[in-house]
């Protein structure tokens, strides 16, 4: 198996964090996993993008075509949509993106991550909702394992655990 993913957004949106949690879960599932982050030179508000490769063998940490691409803002869409696998899935944060993608793509899901986050009471959980949603396209990764990783991530701030687990579940069960 070889899965290539690309997640991108603006610094502070938690895109990298959700990528790392996903990687931890994929490792638990026994795969080789690489996480390649790319940052702008800005310290705040710059673009943050990551390539994730989940595979059985040693592979390139740089992806050719994303089978699943998660995009949080319009500039990321413009910059990276050419890396989409035509047979892949594009997940757009419709709370912030009005533009239509131009690259060919089998499946486009528009999910209002920030509106959903607002509904459960904290916009900071938008990335966990997105993580939950992405999992629908990654059957190799067990939902329960990811939930455990989310709990671990917030272990130092235990009171945030229920909120983030709820966010994960909200994303996982959302129908675009």
């Amino acid at each position, binding site marked *: 198996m070889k899965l290539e993913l690309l997640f991108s957004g603006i610094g502070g949106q938690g895109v990298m964090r959700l990528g790392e949690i996903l990687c931890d879960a994929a490792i638990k599932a026994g795969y080789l996993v690489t996480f390649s982050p790319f940052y702008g030179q800005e310290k705040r508000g710059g673009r943050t993008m990551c390539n994730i490769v989940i595979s059985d063998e040693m592979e390139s940490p740089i*992806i050719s075509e994303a089978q699943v691409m998660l995009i949080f803002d319009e500039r990321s869409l413009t910059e990276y949509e050419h890396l989409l696998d035509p047979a892949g899935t594009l997940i757009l944060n419709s709370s912030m993106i009005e533009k239509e993608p131009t690259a060919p793509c089998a499946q486009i899901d528009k999910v209002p991550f920030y509106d959903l986050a607002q509904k459960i009471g904290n916009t900071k959980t938008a990335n966990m909702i997105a993580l939950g949603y992405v999992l629908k396209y990654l059957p190799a990764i067990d939902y329960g394992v990811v939930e455990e990783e989310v709990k671990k991530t917030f272990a130092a701030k235990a009171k945030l655990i229920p909120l983030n687990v709820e966010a994960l579940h909200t994303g996982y069960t959302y129908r675009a």
Partner: protein
Amino acid sequence: MGERVFMQGNEAMAESAIRAGCKLFFGYPITPSSEVPEYYAKVMRERPEENIMFIQGETETSVFNMIAGAVAAGHRAMTATSGPGFSLGQEAMSYMSAASLPAVIVEVMRPGPADGEILAAQGDYFQATRGGGHGDYNNLVLAPYSVQELCELMQESFDLAEKYHNPVVLLSDAMLAKLRESVELPGYVENEPKPEEKWRTLTGADGRDPHIITTCGRGAIQWERFNLDLQEKFRKIAENEVRYETYNLEDADIVLVAFGCFSRVCISAMKMAREEGMKVGMIRPISLWPFPEEAFRGLDGKKFLVCELNAGQMVQDVKLSVDNKNDVTFYGRLGGQVPTPKEILGEIRKLR
């Protein structure tokens, strides 16, 4: 071996160095190597039992000379830097090679020239493999392709530096430095022989003859002899420390050549090409100096595609190693652009 973790290249490498007994770190922050001094600074305060001494020097020029002092005093010491800082360190690289000081330097390459960018690149290949400073000397240069290999070579670098009394350059890049992957951290190195058994340390001439380290020539006769001794050291390294990996060479018509983390892009491209029915193999040099010339022997008639993140540096060593240099094609990207496996596949198709 130690525990399996999901860790960033720079940090996993720093931890491996600590476990190899490198307690002294002299650093100057520069992207993309800064996590290494940061890691050492943190461990110095949070794990006092490790006895770490981290100094943030005023310049890389200074830092490299601090390493010279620390290894001369019989301790393992290192730094991690990137191109502009490595340039500043060159006078000390020349010095430490001549003075036979076992320093270990991590060079995390980024695109130059000058200030450049902070992304992945391999443009410091010449600087690392040709000595980089003044005079006739060589560094032993190792280029790992995964976080796992980075950690293992990090530990081995100290042994090699001490075996040959020469600086070792561990050549990483922005891609490998920031890459997170699952790695089995090497364990603590134990039962190492004492430094004074391995090289002439400066610890006070208590009960022994004085040790004097000087690189100051005393006339042409003496200085030629000194240089010939140095060349003998480099000859031994060249004889013993060639490292490389080959993939699918047996039936290959086209042989990719790539080093470092970027070679993994080529490995994926090779697999894609094989799925299309093309007979593609690969050579991955691990020691860049000494360059694995022997890997290219007996491959007459094959086409070579050398892929680098620079304007064509290692390709010169490949041309010196193959039977017919007209068989060698180069594909390079600059400025921090890293081609995808699919793009490399496109270059392979052109050779079909």
